[in-house]
């Protein structure tokens, strides 16, 4: 029983990271209807910047906030420079663009900081959380940060004018232009937010997986799985999807003989395919009510 509880809680903690990645993926998917394959690399790069700042003696939380701002700006710049010119291009052109971005970011990180693994600090410590052996303070911190992030996003999209404009631009771009919304900048804003959210995921997972240029590969695939489970159109769905995938991954790895650590990744892929076949709009996908 303790093993079970332990695995579920640990699953929720890593699920929090998948949730952040899924949020970032959904943010861009909503804006341009494409999955950003380079989301993980962008997050990794942000994490390296955080590491570098801390090497230079910047305190953790100052570096954290600086990286959020820098990542946001970076996301906007990538959109303006690379994806805005591709706006009307076919899907394959976008895929090529994402792969190019993936390769460039990965290589530049490797060139700048080399491929040896680095320790990344945690602001939460790694003591047992509230004296319990089941979950560490860092894991609790990951869950807490994700929930706060979800709450902030909810308030932003529900109660602010910019949030409303972003939603309108995502669902009906032409109508959005007709009420005076600059949809092109809304897309850039989506990229900026996605990059900032991704950087949070990177900085939270780095103490667990260690910092190196390939650290986000597996995480992003779980993030995709979470986004698909959640339906790709809803931030809440992405977060719940993240937690579900995290728990599912741990339970399958623990209880199904032969899966272990090595076969965990294919589990995520199997999950993506199952959801797409059984429930293509995911658990929380937008169902459009329409009078015929």
């Amino acid at each position, binding site marked *: 029983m303790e093993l079970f509880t332990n695995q579920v809680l640990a699953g929720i903690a890593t699920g929090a990271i998948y949730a952040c990645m899924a949020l970032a993926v959904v943010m861009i998917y909503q804006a341009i209807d494409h999955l950003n394959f380079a989301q993980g690399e962008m997050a990794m790069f942000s994490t390296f910047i955080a590491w570098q700042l801390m090497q230079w003696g910047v305190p953790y939380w100052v570096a954290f906030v600086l990286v959020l701002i820098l990542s946001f700006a970076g996301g906007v710049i990538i959109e303006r420079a690379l994806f805005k010119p591709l706006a009307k291009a076919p899907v394959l052109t976008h895929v090529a663009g994402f792969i190019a971005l993936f390769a460039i970011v990965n290589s530049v990180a490797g060139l700048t900081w080399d491929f040896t693994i680095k320790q990344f600090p945690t602001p939460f410590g790694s003591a047992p959380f509230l004296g319990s052996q089941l979950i560490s303070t860092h894991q609790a911190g990951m869950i807490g940060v994700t929930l706060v992030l979800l709450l902030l996003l909810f308030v932003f999209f529900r109660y602010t*004018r910019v949030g*409303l*404009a972003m*939603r*309108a631009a995502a*669902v*009906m771009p*032409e*109508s*959005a*232009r*007709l*009420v*005076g*919304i*600059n*949809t092109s900048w809304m897309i850039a804003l989506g990229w900026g937010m996605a990059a900032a959210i991704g950087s949070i995921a990177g900085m939270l997972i780095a103490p667990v997986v260690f910092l190196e240029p390939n650290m986000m590969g597996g995480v992003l695939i779980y993030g995709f799985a979470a986004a698909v489970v959640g339906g790709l159109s809803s931030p809440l769905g992405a977060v719940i999807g993240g937690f579900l995938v995290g728990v599912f991954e741990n339970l399958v790895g623990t209880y199904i003989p032969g899966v272990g650590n090595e076969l965990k990744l294919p589990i995520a892929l199997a999950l993506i395919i199952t959801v797409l076949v059984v429930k293509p709009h995911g658990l929380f996908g*937008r169902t*459009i*009510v*329409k*009078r015929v």
Partner: protein
Amino acid sequence: MTAMLHVKDLRAYYGQVQALHGLEFDLKEGSLTTLLGANGAGKTTTLRAICNMVRSTGSIEFEGKKLDNKSTESIVRLGIAHVPQGRGTFTTMTVEENLQLGAISRKDTKAIDGDIERMYDHFPVLKQRHTQQAGTLSGGEQQMLAVARALMLRPRLMLLDEPSFGLAPLVVRDLFKILGKINREDKVSILVVEQNAQLALELADKAYVIETGRIVMSGTAEEIANNEDVRKSYLGY
């Protein structure tokens, strides 16, 4: 008196196909002008060209400012609200969010809530349904919402594309009554494109007839309504 909207030598293209062939017309401030014409004459294209939603050449001036090469959203911000065919409703959002979106480019955010109340006075049915998803409204209600959303911009000019399309005759009468009221009381100039020529001519003060991308006739609504050819072609008597 100079025109509020001045269109000169307007040509529009869909790919290789030319849809407008040197269209020219004026719209006076405060007027309710209608463009009449059969299917495919270029009425919708004219409205889309004004908002730069189709490739076009020629000159369009609004209150002395050239609109060519301006983006759709910046043209809207000058005070031109466009109610497109199909109404442009944000179907997955609530009625109230749709009205908020109509005012999204306005700077005077404090006045927006008051304007929403005014829209509920114009269209009481929208108040009853203000938390409902806009896609679940009936056709007539959606058209009211589309007009209300356009008015939330506090436009100087409103472009309406076939507001009567798909609506029951009684609903159309109501809607046109409200449009007339908005034109008189709120001083919004209106350019309405219609296939329902009879109704449009009752409401409008000025009319143009388009055929295959050209203006073939213009005059006061009364003159056009009494014209022999127009009666035969568009009014059916």
